[in-house]
């Protein structure tokens, strides 16, 4: 009880510190037209993101999804070790690749562990697994990519916050529809912006239509997959969202950290990483889930 209270006090203290920091950043930005906070802007955005996650946590604090007991600790460790080992192995042994799509199947591990054991296990599996993989291969430490890999496991785990998988799919469908609508409206309202390649003003209204078509395909895909199985639709859609959020986070943070242009972040990082990862995850995660469910029903655990 005391330990729980002290954790909660510490969490509130951190939240207050973060909130104060964001207020100070906002004030600095307001007083200096944003010019003098340059390097601290990413920290402020990260802090706002963390506060957002914390608010979601507070609203759903009673859910089993956030429980961390012995079971979760062991699955976190196993998930992270598996992800690290697979990352190392599939980066080391010669693997076939089709066109530019390298076969890196290990991405299904954080998605699967998040989906089955919850967001905390998923985040730990992705983040620590990535650290482990980089340690074994000797590539160093990249905090933004560690968090990105964590998010790839965290997001699929959020399915545990819903009463059932069908409701989670309805929520996702609604979310996709709203996000696409907002993006398309924004593009239609302001279609002429500087192009990433030329820097000259170009008309981007085509992309609004591309978003709308993409959204319709995703929503239709949900219903097609659901015909086969709700689990298949759920792990694929939540997994895909996790990969987009995770890789998107890394690509955007690299604009600040490494100074990439927006085009570099999208063409050089987001597309080549997210595309193959989504494909690998959509094929392997359902196979892993089916094998796990078979074992679960056989052992009764």
């Amino acid at each position, binding site marked *: 009880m005391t330990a729980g209270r002290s*954790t909660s006090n510490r969490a509130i203290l951190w939240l207050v510190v973060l909130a104060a920091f964001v207020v100070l950043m906002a004030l*600095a930005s307001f007083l200096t037209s944003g*010019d*003098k*906070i*340059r*390097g601290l*802007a990413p*920290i402020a955005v990260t802090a706002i993101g963390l506060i957002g996650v914390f608010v979601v946590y507070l609203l759903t604090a009673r859910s089993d999804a956030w429980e961390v007991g*012995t*079971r979760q*600790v*062991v*699955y*976190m*460790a*196993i998930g*992270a*070790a*598996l992800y690290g*080992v697979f990352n*190392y*192995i599939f980066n080391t042994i010669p693997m*076939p690749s089709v066109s530019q799509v390298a*076969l890196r*199947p290990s991405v299904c591990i954080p998605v*699967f562990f998040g989906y089955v054991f919850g967001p905390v296990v998923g985040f*730990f599996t992705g983040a*620590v697994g990535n650290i*482990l993989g*980089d*340690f*074994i*291969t*000797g*590539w*160093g*430490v990249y905090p933004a990519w560690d968090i990105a890999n964590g998010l790839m496991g965290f997001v699929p785990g959020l399915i545990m916050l819903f009463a059932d998988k069908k409701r989670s799919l309805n929520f996702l469908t609604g979310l996709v529809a709203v996000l696409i609508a907002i993006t398309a409206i924004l593009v239609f309202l302001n279609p002429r912006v500087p192009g990433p*390649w*030329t*820097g000259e003003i170009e008309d981007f209204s085509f992309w609004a239509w591309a978003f709308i078509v993409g959204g319709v395909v995703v929503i239709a895909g949900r219903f097609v997959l659901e015909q086969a199985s709700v689990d298949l639709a759920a792990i694929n859609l939540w997994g895909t969202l996790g990969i987009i959020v995770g890789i998107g986070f890394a690509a955007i943070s690299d*604009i600040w*950290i*490494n*100074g990439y*242009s*927006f*085009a*570099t972040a999208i063409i*050089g*990082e987001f597309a080549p990483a997210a595309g193959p990862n989504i494909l690998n995850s959509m*094929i*392997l995660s359902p*196979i*892993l889930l089916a*094998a*796990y469910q078979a*074992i679960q029903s056989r*052992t009764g*655990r």
Partner: protein
Amino acid sequence: MLIAWRYRERDTIIQRLDPRARILFMLAVLFSVIQFWDLRIELVFLGIAVAQYALARLTWRETRRAWILVSFIILFMTTLTFLTGRGGVEYAYYEEHLIRRLGPLSLPIVGWQISINITAEKSIFAVSQLVRMYTITIMGLTIPYTVDPSLYGATFRGLGLPDKFAYAMDLAFRFVPTLGRDFSITLDSQRARGYEVEKLSGGIVSQIRRLAPLLVPVTINAIVGAEDIIDAMDLRAFGIGPRTWVRQLTYRRADKALIAAGVLIFVASTVLAFIGIGKLWVPDALLRLATTS
């Protein structure tokens, strides 16, 4: 498959430092270096990173693979940023002085016209970006080679991670050799059945699907085996009280000095950036080149 850690016991100044102090210093340098685009300041940070690397006494032989891969990524990304216009953040530079214009080049198939403006600002930005990325990389690169894997649990506990998470981290590091061996056994078993991982045929979907005979048995075996570990830990009342660690970490004078240096660097960088020092610096020679061409 034998999985070996990159860590080797070396009697170096870097390895004698507390890992917590080193991680805090690395983060302080990371958050400092990203506040500047001035090449002269970036070079100071590169100097700090190179000094740390030199003190770690790593050999080219052990880090060669990492260097090749990292250099390829850094050069590719820097070139791509150079070709795709204004890099980083919008306010890195506003005005551009043209040195040379290449193109317009016509892309095959799509027929898009692309022209590349080589400007003084863009060129110096690319050099600064290169230096910044190498600084960040070198700071992180030494960690796997110089921090003992058996200390990670205690290190992150010491940095404020709750007991359960720190223990999970410790456990994950211990599972790695076992899972590497399990993977090896599975690979050999599947090969004995005629499975050839090097010669997967078919389209991309079927090729990915054919990796399942390697991935699924190792993962499911690990999960099934986890039940015994969970039972054993529960029987020993895991998580009831605070944990103790076999190897305790204590800050010494050098560690405190390193943390203080990290804090000082971060505070100084933030103040300098706030008063407007450290924006993109364009050498006069480059500007002269722009005006004469």
